[in-house]
């Protein structure tokens, strides 16, 4: 992957999060504290501002740099959670991304540990885990299939009862709303996969 490619991927993900910030906030207002969109926009604006410098780094270092920015800038629980995802990816991934499935599995594990959570609690893990499983299964056309897996997984959080995070305070009233973290995860995966397809790097 060239720095130009990496730059396009970073910008694609950051732009998708920034463009959907209001939607994330609305989802969070329904079952949380309403700050997810604002927090994620602040984090990814910082990531986007540094995208050119980040893209010059080897892939593991670039991912760690993004993770550090999210940790420092996002605030809210999503900062350490997404920060940990990128930091852990950077720690494990090979410079040529050849071990992406294993690295993503390790990163999802790290997010579970950071959030003291597991899939089924109506969180971002309910998207990350099925995406990780699909990635581990492998097969053709992953960049086309993973966004579908992620979107379906985010939809599947709607009927779930939240048992972790601020939404868990609502108990039964958390049912019937999509989890904002699940939505932001699906957004990031979809924008990354679309950019990979456009670059023909799938």
């Amino acid at each position, binding site marked *: 992957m060239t720095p130009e490619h990496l730059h396009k991927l970073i910008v694609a993900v950051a732009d998708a999060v920034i463009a959907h910030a209001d939607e994330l906030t609305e989802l969070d207002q329904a079952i949380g504290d309403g700050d997810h969109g604002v927090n994620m926009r602040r984090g990814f604006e910082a990531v986007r501002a540094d995208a050119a410098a980040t893209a010059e780094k080897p892939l593991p270092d670039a991912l760690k740099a993004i993770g550090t920015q999210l940790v420092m800038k996002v*605030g809210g*629980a999503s900062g*350490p959670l997404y920060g940990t995802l990128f930091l852990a990816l950077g720690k494990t991934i090979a410079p040529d991304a050849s071990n992406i499935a294993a690295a993503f599995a390790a990163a999802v594990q790290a997010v579970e540990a950071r959030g003291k959570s597991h899939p089924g609690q109506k969180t971002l893990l309910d998207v990350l885990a099925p995406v990780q499983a699909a990635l581990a299964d492998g097969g053709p056309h992953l960049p086309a299939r993973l966004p579908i897996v992620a979107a379906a997984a985010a939809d599947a959080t709607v009927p779930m009862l939240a048992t972790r995070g601020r939404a868990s305070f609502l108990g039964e009233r958390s049912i019937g709303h999509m989890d904002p973290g699940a939505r932001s995860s699906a957004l990031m995966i979809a924008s990354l996969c679309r950019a990979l397809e456009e670059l023909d790097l799938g």
Partner: protein
Amino acid sequence: MANVGIVIVSHSPKIAEGAADMVRQMVGDSVNLAYAGGDPGGGLGTSVPSIRDAIDRAWSEAGVAVLVDLGGAETNSEMAIEMLDAERRDRVVVCNAPIVEGAVMAATEASGGSTLEAVRRTAEELSPQ
């Protein structure tokens, strides 16, 4: 041996400051005390860099006990602790306790020269088991 330091982390800068005022009234200057509140944009929330700075300000060789309010405050505090130097990291704990009562009880315990573990236990006695 210095007394354990206390850090208060709230989503609200006003709660963090107010809880710190209550601690100060209890224990005066006998424990190092610092607080962090608000997200990196100045709104309600918590911020890893400001928590890390608060831990630095409250630093004591006996360690630092951190009192938090809601989820993100805990997650961000744990992240801030992990980013400390290795020799400091193991001497900072997040107490599972209500923020105001926990901070006052922890500071009172700390002011008597108790260990970090004893300070944490005293704060956590306030939580339903």
